[in-house]
């Protein structure tokens, strides 16, 4: 095999795939645009806060005990004050580990809610007919401030249980359909708090005391390692294997698909025999596989690079074991060679891309299976079936990588055994593919089926 020729073929393969507008736009520009758009979307969401809603809220308080407090709490001043508490509370919850996120969401939420609504309160009295009251929601007024936006109906047993019942009553909120969801939820929250506080008062409990009693502060999960104690990041650790497998799948599929496409193009444009006058079939196949390997690696390195940058940015780089990256590259190489060999064989055997689809069906099923199976594998990486899968090609690169990236990585000997088995399988597939390739290249006419391919393997 003439290495120089292989490199020339690989160079052309890479240039004709990766230096095209389609590739640059599809693989590089689109993700970049998405990344650039994300902050923009955040800004848009923030600026999309609703205008302060103006109008009337009617209260039909059947219990006769909540209405006054509620009317007080629905004034703009009270709402502003309550809102000031909300982010604080969220932040406190986050700190105490009740919620996974930090104060970021709370402040974003606050800005999303916008200015507090300016309500005028109408007390309807405990016996008001609700059907009559609903009529107000259908009325129209010149002055927006005169429109009734919502009616709150508080049940008679909202704060004091009916004799013999264990449960309290509640409330119902009627609104105009056009009322913003953020406004109606402000009303809901306020009503709920008013009812709760009234219940506490009646029960003789101090509301602040109760809140203090029910809140538990937690120091989070701390992992103790040789290097020191650090915050556990279990959630991200679960996501990491998925990300790694998706990257692997994407890199392998991109390279493989392009390989198939260029191979079919060379055949259908009949350029293949011209090439064979200069290179041997094996040099051609090796060059093409190598060229598309570069294409796949380019994508992989780029996306993985972005991922690593993100980890650096959020200072979570310690999540990543550098040996894992090495394993990822090795398994990418193996998985790619397996798929590429197959794609080259199929590409050489057919005349059109359409004909390739039927032959590709089984391969795609295996690949997608490998992809999906990696998820359960990463969740139970030491289950016997997961261990078995990580040694059975062509699923093994995916399954083993999922195990490596999981929370219980396998022993090194297992990894290297899997690498050995998978490499042998990849070598075998290249050997078979080479046979099909040699025969298929000059076969035009009727597209082959699997039986024909097997005949070719015997023939070559």
């Amino acid at each position: 095999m003439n290495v120089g020729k292989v490199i020339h073929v690989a160079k052309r393969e890479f240039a004709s795939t990766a230096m095209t507008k389609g590739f640059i736009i599809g693989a590089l520009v689109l993700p970049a645009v998405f990344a650039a758009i994300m902050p923009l979307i955040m800004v848009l969401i923030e600026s999309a806060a609703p205008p302060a809603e103006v109008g009337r809220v009617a209260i039909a308080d059947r219990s006769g005990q909540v209405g006054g407090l509620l009317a007080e709490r629905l004034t703009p001043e009270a709402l502003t004050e309550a809102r000031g508490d909300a982010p604080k509370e969220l932040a406190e919850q986050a700190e105490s580990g009740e919620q996974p996120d930090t104060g970021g969401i709370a402040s974003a939420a606050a800005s999303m809610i916008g200015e507090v609504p300016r309500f005028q309160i109408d007390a309807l009295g405990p016996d008001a007919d609700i059907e009559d009251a609903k009529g107000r929601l259908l009325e129209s007024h010149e002055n927006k401030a005169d429109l009734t936006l919502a009616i709150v109906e508080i049940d008679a047993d909202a704060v004091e249980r009916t004799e013999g019942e264990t449960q309290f009553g509640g409330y119902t909120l009627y609104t105009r359909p056009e009322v913003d969801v953020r406004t109606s939820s402000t009303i809901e929250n306020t009503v709920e708090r008013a009812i709760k506080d009234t219940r506490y008062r009646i029960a003789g409990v101090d509301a602040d005391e109760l809140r203090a009693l029910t809140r538990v502060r937690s120091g989070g999960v701390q992992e103790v390692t040789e290097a020191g104690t650090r915050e556990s990041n279990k959630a991200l650790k679960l996501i990491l294997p998925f990300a790694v497998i998706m990257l692997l799948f994407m890199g392998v599929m991109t390279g493989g698909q392009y390989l198939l496409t260029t191979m079919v193009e060379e055949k259908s444009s009949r350029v293949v025999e011209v090439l064979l006058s200069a290179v041997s079939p094996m040099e051609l196949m090796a060059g093409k596989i190598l060229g598309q390997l570069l294409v796949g690696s380019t994508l992989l390195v780029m996306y993985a690079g972005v991922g690593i940058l993100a980890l650096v940015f959020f200072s979570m780089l310690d999540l990543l074991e550098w040996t894992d990256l090495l394993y990822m590259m090795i398994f990418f190489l193996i998985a790619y060679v397996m798929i590429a060999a197959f794609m080259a064989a199929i590409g050489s055997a057919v005349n059109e891309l359409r004909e390739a689809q039927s032959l590709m069906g089984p391969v795609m099923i295996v690949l997608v299976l490998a992809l999906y199976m990696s998820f359960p594998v990463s969740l139970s990486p030491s289950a016997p079936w997961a261990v078995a899968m990580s040694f059975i090609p062509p699923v093994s690169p995916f399954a083993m990588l999922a195990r490596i990236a999981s929370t219980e990585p396998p022993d090194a000997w297992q990894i290297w055994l899997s690498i050995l088995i998978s490499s042998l399988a990849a070598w075998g597939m290249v050997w078979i593919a080479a046979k099909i390739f040699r025969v298929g290249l000059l076969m035009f006419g009727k597209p082959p089926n699997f039986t024909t391919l097997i005949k070719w393997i015997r023939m070559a």
Partner: protein
Amino acid sequence: MRSVRKTFGKKVAVEGIDLDVPAGELVGFIGPNGAGKSTTIRMIMSILFPDSGELSVLGKKSAVESKDRIGYLPEERGVYKKMKVGAFLRYMGALKGLGGPGLGKTADEWLERVALGDVKNKRCEELSKGMQQKVQFIGCVLHEPDLIILDEPFSGLDPVNMRLLRDLIREQHDAGRTVIFSTHVMVQAEQLCDHIVMIHNGQKVIDDPIGAIRSRYAPRIVRFEGLNGADASAAVGGLAEIAHVSATDGQAEAHLADGVDPGRAIAAMTAAVPMARVELHRPSLEDIFIDMVQDTADKDERERLRAQLRQDGTPTEAGGAS
């Protein structure tokens, strides 16, 4: 080539061909479509491998070891549609082991020579089929190979480009290179070759210099036309020197009797009838070929072959077994 045999499944494509092509020769492979020409050429190129028999190319066991010294224009040829013409030629040159800054210059010079100087930066798909063919020919000779193999190089070319290509092939031959080309149109071979190899049904039926073929198949037919359109057939047919008279394509033809000298026959014919034209007809390769396969082929088959050997159309969709 020694006793080279190649089968595709049950079909025998090439049956025991022996062939020597001396260095510096210009050899034409002729034969109808499906005769085994392309298969033979592909085996010379080590693109296909014979089932049995041996062959050596440029002193090596197979062409694989000397690909850079061979220029090959396959019958099934194409270009990368999206690639620029200049880039395509540079790529072909690079695959043939050329390199350096001289490569681009050589490619440009060649494009100028075949009147394609302005297409260098065009994509291959923008070129006509004939233009693409010229580009492919350049790709085949760019690296100044010792052996040039052209499979049906003339198909799809217009008369002007056919002449251009003929001149280019002759020029390569004059430069001392060995040229093998195949064609199913006999006239092209007659115009160009020193040496003819005729293949029929996978077997070599002729392998001789063109002069030797001519002398072996000495003219035995006199074409004639009576003066003022008079029908001279009856009078000519009555002569002792003439075996019988026939008509081919509207031409009256007198077939000489065995052992009769053509000169004597012509003298006898002009003496017998006033003639507007009397002409000793040299057999074309086409005639010879039809004559050779006569034993095996019936009349319809002969006519079909004759039509095929004249037709200068595009080759039929050839599979691996062409």
